[in-house]
């Protein structure tokens, strides 16, 4: 393959000279995409020991049932993470608190601390559940909303905040909580890595197109996708009935769901 011969990764859009694996997100390039008849695309299953780069740093994904993301940080470069997602680190890697403004996280049901680790050195992360690593390289201007407790790590160049899901119904019934993590690549690109519980599927909704989800299955979405709680009344006839709560996602934009979700109680 000469220098002008490139393959475009269908997951992250980056161009690769390596015909087997995307250097930006680690997705295999020599396997067919798995797309269901209903239009959901399976997230690329990263091969054990896949390696990819961001900035002057690199990541390696290890294992396949509960994968570990091992990061090699260059001097002065950093990643931040929820403190309980760290698996191990070299003792030379310094850690500090990631500065966050806004309401107290502990009152919102989010982890109390977001921790920042800086290179040089190695640090590794994993979640305590069967699932898949979802690598989301973010170009400048991209904004993603992520369900709570799904974010594994993000590069320091990505801005972090948490947003309130609008609508009282979301708070009471949507089951996705009042807040979601919001990641924004403002001026420079960066990397966001998530842990999806079970298998992860992605689809892109056209403008105005919508789909109804079990609220607990929502993993991430473009900030352009609107999310609203929807109560579906279920009747059994005379004076009988109950309801179930679904999340209506309306495009335009990309949404990702996870197949092992936390079910949120309905009225039953």
């Amino acid at each position, binding site marked *: 393959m000469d220098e002008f011969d490139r393959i475009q990764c269908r997951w992250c859009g980056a161009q690769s000279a390596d015909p087997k694996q995307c250097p930006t997100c680690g997705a295999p390039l020599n396997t067919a995409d*798995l797309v*269901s*008849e*209903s239009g*959901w695309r*399976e997230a690329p*299953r990263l091969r054990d020991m896949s390696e990819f780069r961001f900035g002057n740093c690199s990541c390696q994904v290890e294992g396949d*049932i509960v994968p570990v993301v091992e990061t090699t940080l260059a001097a002065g470069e950093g990643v931040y993470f929820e403190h309980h997602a760290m698996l191990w680190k070299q003792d030379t890697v310094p850690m500090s608190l990631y500065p966050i403004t806004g309401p107290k996280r502990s009152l919102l049901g989010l982890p109390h601390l977001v921790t920042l680790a800086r290179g040089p050195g190695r640090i590794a992360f994993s979640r305590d559940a*069967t*699932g*898949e690593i979802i690598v989301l390289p973010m170009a400048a201007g991209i904004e993603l909303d992520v369900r709570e407790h799904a974010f594994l790590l993000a590069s320091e160049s990505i801005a972090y905040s948490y947003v309130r899901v609008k609508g009282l119904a979301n708070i009471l019934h949507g089951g996705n909580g009042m807040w979601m993590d919001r990641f924004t690549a403002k001026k420079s690109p960066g990397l966001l890595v998530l842990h999806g*519980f*079970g*298998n992860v*599927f992605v689809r892109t909704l056209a403008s105005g197109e*919508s*789909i*109804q*989800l*079990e609220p607990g*299955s929502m993993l991430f979405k473009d900030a352009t996708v609107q999310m609203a709680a929807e109560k*579906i009344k*279920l*009747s*059994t006839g005379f004076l*009988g*009935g*109950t309801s*179930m709560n*679904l999340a209506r996602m309306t495009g335009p934009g990309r949404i990702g*769901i*996870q*197949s*092992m*979700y*936390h*079910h949120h109680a*309905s009225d*039953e």
Partner: protein
Amino acid sequence: MSAYTCPFCDSQSDGAGSGCPFCGAPVNITLRRTASGWLEMPPMADMTRIQCGQSSVQIEGAYVPVADFKLADGDGVYFAHHELLWKDQGVSVQLSSLKGGWKRLMAGLPLRMLTATGPGRIAFSRDAAGETLAIPLRPGHTVDVRENIFMVATRAVQYDFFDSQVWFQTKDGDETETHYPAGWLLDRFSASGEPGLLLIHAHGNAFQRVLAQGESILVKPSGFLFKDTTVKMSLHFERPSKGFTIWRWGERYLWLRLTGPGKVAVQSAYGHTHDPGGRVVGCSSATERQW
């Protein structure tokens, strides 16, 4: 002419596709049978498609598979409400109550089933790593399934439940407690007029074997997955030899005895079977052994 009999669902087909058209099990694989006789139920290949009448279902994913139904106009499936992953807006969902509501409530089972009617798409998954198993039910075929394993069934499949009749009682002071190691109730699915499809979710990996008449095997009660109706269930208590270990009074191993003839299946990931120890003051049919 039917040239291929699926070793997992016993359905006959021409074996021309990559999977059994009735249960989705891969066709061109080497059967994995343990030395002890368990047949490993192979995971369905990602994106396997099973036709059920005018409708179809596609199995997607490997760790926590999703069952993605394409329902034809007027076709329907039923399911417990917590199985739903997503649906098209056009798919209508109705509620139907089940008989024995109080008993189901006490047994921790859903009180109602939801029915979804096509046309449109609707998908289901469980919140645990494992395998989706498709059990095609021919007219006259009935299968008993452990409670809380059921995922979704086509409308042609009839649903019922019954007492497992596997229980024991312990006494603590004046309190007598009844325990149901295999669940208080068992789900029973059958097809009468036309064939149907039943999907269940096994936690971990699933294994099956066929027990001969009178042959029995002891399994962890919470590992039991499904069985033919001809297979009988009973309890078996074992007390280990004391040896150098001092066992507390009342400590024991608790087994579920499955006795043939018929097919049985187990799952490799199972919940803890609670046995508080103490004296057994009553039980269903049981055997006992002191080592």
